[in-house]
């Protein structure tokens, strides 16, 4: 019983979990707070689209993901069904 417990305990070490959680979190936080790029892009993209389509400012998300080799710029714009007509 006590031997079994020793094994299960050593299998569940917490430091690797801490390390992994931090790496994921900080990759995300560095991308969003590291520069104002996403905020600027968001504003300008919103302005361009709003010229042609009526849309809600909250429905535009801009995300930059970075890893060692590539950066991915992800733009997600949600356009309501009747927006094109309304504009």
């Amino acid at each position: 019983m006590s031997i079994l417990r020793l094994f299960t305990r050593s299998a569940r070490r917490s430091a690797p979990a801490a390390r992994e959680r931090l790496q994921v979190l900080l990759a995300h936080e560095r991308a969003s707070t590291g520069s104002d790029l996403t905020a600027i892009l968001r504003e300008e993209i919103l302005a361009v689209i709003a010229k042609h389509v009526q849309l809600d400012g909250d429905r535009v998300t801009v995300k930059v993901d970075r890893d060692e080799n590539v950066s991915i710029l992800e733009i997600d714009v949600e356009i309501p069904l009747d927006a094109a007509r309304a504009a």
Partner: protein
Amino acid sequence: MGKVIVVTSGKGGVGKTTSTAALGAALAQRNEKVAVVDFDVGLRNLDLVMGAERRVVYDLVNVINGDAKLPQALIRDKRLDTLFLLPASQTRDKDALTEEGVERVIGELKKYFDWVICDSPAGIEKGATLAMRHADVAVVVTNPEVSSVRDSDRIIGMLDSKTLKAENGERMEKHLLLTRYDSLRAERGDMLKVDDVLEILSIPLLGIIPESTDVLKASNLGAPVTLSDARSAPAQAYFEAARRLAGEIVPVTVPGEKRGIFGKLFGRKAA
């Protein structure tokens, strides 16, 4: 011209004030002229940790406002001739600090001292940004614990964007001071290891301060740990860190990692 160091962390309670006092004293023990400056206006503690709490007459805010001259506010350490303290004000808040005022005081201190060590308040607001604003070198104090590492990462981002050096396109020199480290727990896998933290924050290591009762004992007595018990493990680690700050190349030792063959075998098994 002296060098300006900011001791910062984002998170509170990780050992900024303890480290400011210990590094300041360690540098002064090398006969260098050192001024330690408390930027934690409203919650000053550097005076208490250094045992000068009953000698405070004027403070940083008084000097900024022109109510006192810098030499009147500086408190000379009773044990070390070359160590001086500029205390923070306890009755005001961080808004009493102005950018121009801080610049003038730091500029003046740099003329007289080899080292000006600024003890930053916790947080990322005005007090912390003004403490790092004029720094040449940053010491980022971090505990091997998730919230402290995250906050240090945030502070590193600010050091690279909100300081004068960064705004002038220069590189801010940053060093990691890992405090409250317990090598046994790290070895067991229950605490982030030195290498984990270094890999995540990717700034060079200044030193590893072991978790130790000597640190609390020193603050109880109002003495930097390098003075209260110079032979203790944390004091030795601070001496090493101070030598690195002064430009010496000293290999980093992980405190308490001298285990016998039995410990090594056991450590392997657990890992």
